[in-house]
């Protein structure tokens, strides 16, 4: 298991937590500022608004599944501290994303999807902490790609900016999870 050391050599884990906590607040705060109370959303044309709401609903669906996946990981008994704390923190970010997306969809006049009663995860393949981390990393990488594919589509550029903000958060999750697995946290200069 390896982690990045962030400035505080005497207590790197505390430093990383502090860094992640602050950066998460900045990202979600920016996104909320972008969207909450943004009357331009309601003023969009009907077709554009409908299309944006549809894209956001797909993102919300994936966020809700990610929340459930982290819950499975947290309750698996396979995650040890401080990895468990990281997983719970990342789950918290996904909850913030989901909350923001649901509110924005409503603002656009759409109906936000709800969490499914049951999600099916490949729990039979999750036998170690590394298995859980690898599974989570795959979902986070997929989320980065999904947001990357959504950003150019929004009719409202504020929504594109907010989606890019969430993308940045997912990319950090992916990098931290890869690092925790002992893999290169940033394996390439570009994401696709």
């Amino acid at each position, binding site marked *: 298991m390896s982690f990045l050391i962030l400035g505080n050599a005497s207590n790197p884990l505390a430093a990383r937590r502090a860094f992640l906590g602050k950066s998460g607040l900045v990202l979600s705060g920016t996104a909320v500022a972008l969207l909450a109370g943004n009357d331009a959303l309601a003023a969009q044309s009907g077709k554009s608004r409908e299309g944006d709401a549809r894209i956001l609903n797909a993102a919300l669906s994936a966020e809700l*599944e990610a929340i459930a996946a982290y819950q499975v990981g947290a309750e698996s008994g396979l995650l040890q501290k401080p990895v468990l704390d990281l997983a719970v923190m990342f789950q918290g970010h996904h909850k913030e994303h989901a909350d923001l997306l649901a509110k924005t969809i409503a603002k656009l006049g759409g109906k936000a999807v709800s969490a499914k009663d049951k999600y099916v995860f490949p729990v039979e393949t999750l036998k170690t902490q590394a298995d859980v981390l690898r599974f989570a990393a795959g979902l986070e990488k997929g989320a980065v790609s999904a947001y990357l594919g*959504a950003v150019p589509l929004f009719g409202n550029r504020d929504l594109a900016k907010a989606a890019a903000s969430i993308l940045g958060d997912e990319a950090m999750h992916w990098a931290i999870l890869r690092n925790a697995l002992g893999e290169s946290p940033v394996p390439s200069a570009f994401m696709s």
Partner: protein
Amino acid sequence: MMGWSVMRTQVLLPLVIALTATLFVAGSAAGTATVIRGDAKAGEAIYSRCVACHSLAQDRTGPRHCGVIGRRAGSVSGFGYSDAMKRSKLVWNVKTLDRFIQNPMRTVPGTAMGYAGIADQQERADLIAYLAQANSSAVCRP
């Protein structure tokens, strides 16, 4: 009981496509065509872009991909498709998948798949080759 012709279509067709997944695209010179051969191994890596919403064997935000080759669009039982996808009348094969993956929202306006698409022809061919090959893998066997 599954007839041979049906079984041949369901079992052999994806296998053949997996082995020979190719896209014929217009070349730069008149009267020529460039053959794009898909590499399933490379396609597996590209599939990592899809896994926030899709998996091979399970319906998630998007429908499962096992059995996608030869399947009518919008036809996985119990999955909540958009009306646009249900009405699309597409049948997924190398050609239709290539068109959809290149630009989902242009190919099926109103689709719930809010994704800009994969512009690179080779990447699309690789991804389709992977989907075809995966269909005959253990994870897709009932």
